[in-house]
């Protein structure tokens, strides 16, 4: 499938930070990012490394896993957004239950994609987030 190259604020390429403890998952996400016309600014295998990598690379978008050693993705989102309120972070995880999604969005993530990732779905979500839109939180049990 062909994708129209992503754009962001007149930059020639959208720069991504890819965070996942699985090297294999990172490679696959990087391949998708390149198919979208994006550029890999950095990679990290846990939440602690993600914070450091964000500080040094200032990417346009972060793709962040949740279940990782040392520090989980949701905690890393909290740290990054506290220091960089404009950070655009998309959670990419196989664990997609409502509490997790809600918690990630409350900490400042912009969207959530469940694994296995469909490239066309990820592309649309990144385009949405690049326009500074934020996903709506899922309804909780107490809501209608």
């Amino acid at each position, binding site marked *: 499938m062909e994708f129209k190259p992503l754009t962001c604020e007149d930059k020639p390429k959208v720069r991504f930070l890819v965070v996942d*403890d*699985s*090297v*294999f*998952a990172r*490679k*696959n996400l990087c*391949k998708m990012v390149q198919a979208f016309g994006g550029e890999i600014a950095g990679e990290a295998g846990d939440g602690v490394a993600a914070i450091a990598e964000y500080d040094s690379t200032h990417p346009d978008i972060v793709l962040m896993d949740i*279940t*990782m*050693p040392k520090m989980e993705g949701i905690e890393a989102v909290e740290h990054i957004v506290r220091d960089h309120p404009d950070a655009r972070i998309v959670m990419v*995880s*196989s*664990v*997609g*239950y*409502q*509490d*997790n999604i809600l918690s990630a969005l409350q900490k400042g993530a912009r969207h959530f994609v*469940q*694994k*296995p990732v*469909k490239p066309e779905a990820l592309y649309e979500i990144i385009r949405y987030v690049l326009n500074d839109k934020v996903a709506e939180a899922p309804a909780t049990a107490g809501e209608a």
Partner: protein
Amino acid sequence: MKMELIQPFINSLDAVIAETMGCSAEIADVTMEEGNYKRTGIAALVGISGEIEGRVILDMETAAAQQAAADLSGAAGNPTDETARETVCELTNMVIGNAVTQLNDHGFKFRVHPPEIYALDGGLQGAPDTEAVVLRFETPKGAVYLNIAVRYRQRRAGERAATRVLCP
């Protein structure tokens, strides 16, 4: 072990295999196991803690794992053993993550730990009071085994309390 705990893992494996490998997975055999689990090919283990606790192992015949690695990486030629191991880890992460999502949305609160490659040749000793269900799935690319050993934590605590009353 109750079916309500097992069914989400079956649904999830079926969906993940279809999505990532583009083929179906049919249940070919179901057995109960109390002793050590000896892997068949390349296996990864995920621990679960919370209201439900235990572990799940996804074990793929080596040929199936290598085919999955080739399908998922899209690389030409035979994938390395390392790539096949990483593929099994990631498939395990997806299967268990999706199952856990279904269970959490049905009210069970617990968390999963990152997958680890299960490389022991001598077998993994199960918990003495938890039997494992082993499901063998047949796919056109080889067999995939799912070894599920999970239990309700609260019920186990209740059983311990009852034992203390009976055997002070």
